[in-house]
């Protein structure tokens, strides 16, 4: 495959408004969408705003929507599109636009701060932690998360429902709760808070989050559904229910 001229449409604007702008740009073999955005910057629009860091799929900074699908710009090869196809790049829809492709993702940092931190047993000394590989693997899968926020962006609970943002932490932070709940040495009980404080009940397991995850984490199957089961065991187990009635904490 040789070089060709691609038609790109990029959303330009800020919080007051904006629109799609057309660019014709050279594309070479093996290039990813971020390369093309950089070429537009270097040759046609020096002030085109885009957030990126590693360009290797490890930092999760360059999240945007490509032809309407939430993706990392650095991990989407131009060869996935037909040479004659116009490729449209727009900012993440669930977060407020700052400028061009850069959005205000502070919602995620706010939610991160609300999840109670890892709580080890009080008397366990550094160096004395013992865990089996099979036991850490469950939480390790969730710790592969690069915080690109694509799952947060795509989840329909908040994507078109700003009003749910208060009560719903989103897949990334519900997965964080699950990660800590499954940590072999965490002593905090996180089941009630998952439901009551972070809105686990809003999730109706459509797996959109899993589909867009660039790390291929099975967010729904391995984090959210097991967490829902743990909550259900607590809430609807008749023995636990009776215990709670009799010995109200």
């Amino acid at each position, binding site marked *: 495959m040789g070089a060709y001229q691609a038609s790109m449409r990029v959303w330009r604007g800020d919080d007051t408004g904006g629109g799609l702008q057309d660019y014709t740009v050279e594309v070479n073999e093996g290039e990813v969408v971020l390369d093309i955005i950089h070429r537009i910057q*270097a040759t046609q629009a020096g002030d085109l705003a885009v957030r990126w860091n*590693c*360009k*290797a799929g490890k930092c999760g900074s360059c999240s945007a929507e490509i032809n309407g699908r939430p993706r990392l710009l650095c991990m989407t090869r131009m060869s996935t599109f037909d040479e004659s196809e116009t490729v449209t790049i727009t900012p993440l829809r669930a977060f407020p636009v700052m400028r061009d492709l850069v959005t205000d993702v502070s919602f995620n940092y706010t939610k991160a701060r609300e999840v109670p931190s890892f709580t080890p047993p009080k008397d366990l000394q550094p160096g004395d932690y013992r865990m*089996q590989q099979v036991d850490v693997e469950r939480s390790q899968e969730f710790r592969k998360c690069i915080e690109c926020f694509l799952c947060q962006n795509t989840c329909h609970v908040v994507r078109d429902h700003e009003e749910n943002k208060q009560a719903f932490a989103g897949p990334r932070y519900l997965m964080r709760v699950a990660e800590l709940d499954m940590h072999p040495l965490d002593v905090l009980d996180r089941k009630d808070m998952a439901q009551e404080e972070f809105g686990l009940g809003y999730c109706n397991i459509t797996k959109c989050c899993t589909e867009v995850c660039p790390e291929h984490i099975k967010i729904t199957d391995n984090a959210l559904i097991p967490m829902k089961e743990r909550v259900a065991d607590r809430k609807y187990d008749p023995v636990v229910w009776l215990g709670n009635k009799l010995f109200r904490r």
Partner: protein
Amino acid sequence: MVEVERHEYDVVVIGAGGAGLRAVIEARQRGLRVAVVTKSLFGKAHTVMAEGGCAAAMKNANAKDTWQIHFADTMRGGKFLNNWRMAELHAQEAPDRVWELETYGALFDRTKDGRISQRNFGGHTYPRLAHVGDRTGLEIIRTMQQKIVSLQQEDNAELGDYEARIKVFHECSITELVKDGDRIAGALGYFRETGKFVLFEAPAVVLATGGIGKSFKVSSNSWEYTGDGHALALRAGASLINMEFIQFHPTGMVWPLSVKGILVTEGVRGDGGVLKNSEGKRFMFDYIPSVFKGQYAETEEEADQWLKDNDSARRTPDLLPRDEVARAINSEVKAGRGSPHGGVYLDIASRIPVEEIKRRLPSMYHQFMELAEVDITKDEMEVGPTCHYVMGGIEVDPDTGAATTPGLFAAGECSGGMHGSNRLGGNSLSDLLVFGRRAGMGASDYVVSLKERPKVLEHAVDAATTMALSPFDEHPEPENPYTLHAELQQSMNDLVGIIRKEDEIQAALDKLEELKTRVHNVTVEGGRFFNPGWHLAIDMRNMLLVSECVAKAALQRTESRGGHTRDDHPEMDAHWRNTLLVCRAGGGDPIVPDVTVTPESQTQMRPDLLGCFELSELEKYYTDAELTEHPERSS
């Protein structure tokens, strides 16, 4: 006059990678109020890209490991130019720093008895790298990010404000340090989002800004690596050392061109992967340098035996220190035995089972599949050297991280000395933890000891904001910042790269002079709101200054050692071993001041540490006069 937002803190940490965050944790735990300022979003720093692991002699995989052996490996890796006190502190304290991460919630891979698993790596005698698959850096940054959140939660519980003691200022770039007399008084920067200026008034600043790789075309580094800390320190009167030593990681991707330079972890070789040339030969056996003769396996059988059992054979030369492997690959390609795209082959597919590859090297599998359409469980990878790490950096006191400017501290990649002329893989993550903590400690002690806080002078702020805004002015012959950057990268890559020559370095210096003139005319379009062209124009100042340090020091050092290879001076020279080339800046152009390079010698190693090595090994590196205190001689 330009509007400037103001904040007052005890300590300002610039950079939110591993070193910066560990410094923040330390200063906060000592009761100080800390601002952490980062060019990116919180949790995106370059540390996420560290793959293989974090070196610490915890003895989990081999009980014979000790801090002394880790120390000795580090010195050997750096060809004995390292600051030995830093190497000593690093080896002694790394295990505690790793165990501490578990108390913050880190989940490392485990041994069968439930302890932290440790893997083999280049230059390390024993399996020593705590790791999480091949995404160890991500685990470390996320762990410290979450520790900072937990400290903020404590502060919120106590004081009703998450940000009472730690505040993260993200997407904020510092353009200048501000001094009161010779002491640090604060730091001035701008928010990338709005382009508005912000002044941090603080008696102590910790620089933790990472490296300089974005001055080179083929690099494993992210856009942030523009040498900001190095340049800020120079302009604040501090000195840099070892700037000629740049690590070219032997295994970067080479194809497709657009991903050239992206890192392929040394963990591939640690887990049994081998380098081969176009003839299918495992060529590393031909490249064991004389100083390492006897320490490495000489046949394929012995190398493979070592992978199974460290104690029954010598280590594989595929895991020689990175400088050696990078040069070997370079030589094979030059000799015409390279791969189609100018690299060599790295084979893991024929070495370990498919499932093991996917389990131990998931991000490598993923990276090659998605970016190069290569399935590493079936086919060989094509790899070649990529600019990865700068050994050189801000000259600091080993125990406190203090730079030569009072109130200025540095840790991690932007500091110099610890790794000598070449860093061992795995010693970077441990460096961050050990010296991040020490810089946080040093800065806290300094602030507490102050009788009177330094004051920020207004004219310094005005001068800095004016300079930062100059790319918006009209210039007679406007220059595009992206063009200047590309020219700098090409020049440094071609002329001050992995193999250097006097005339080429001179040509690079001429090019730098030209770019220093042209940078005055850099002109950007658009406004101050999130304008990448403007951001790059400001970063160019730092890249040019730091590149000049690299080139000038490379020109002066007329020997080859570690990350500095001179084609015209191919031998290592014992008389150069103890000489540090110290860079300082001052005078000349205010945008990119002049650099001077002065040779200075470092303190001799303590006799008890000399005793960690056999005399016969040291004789390969040291002059005879330097070894009179070695225990084998003095007894």
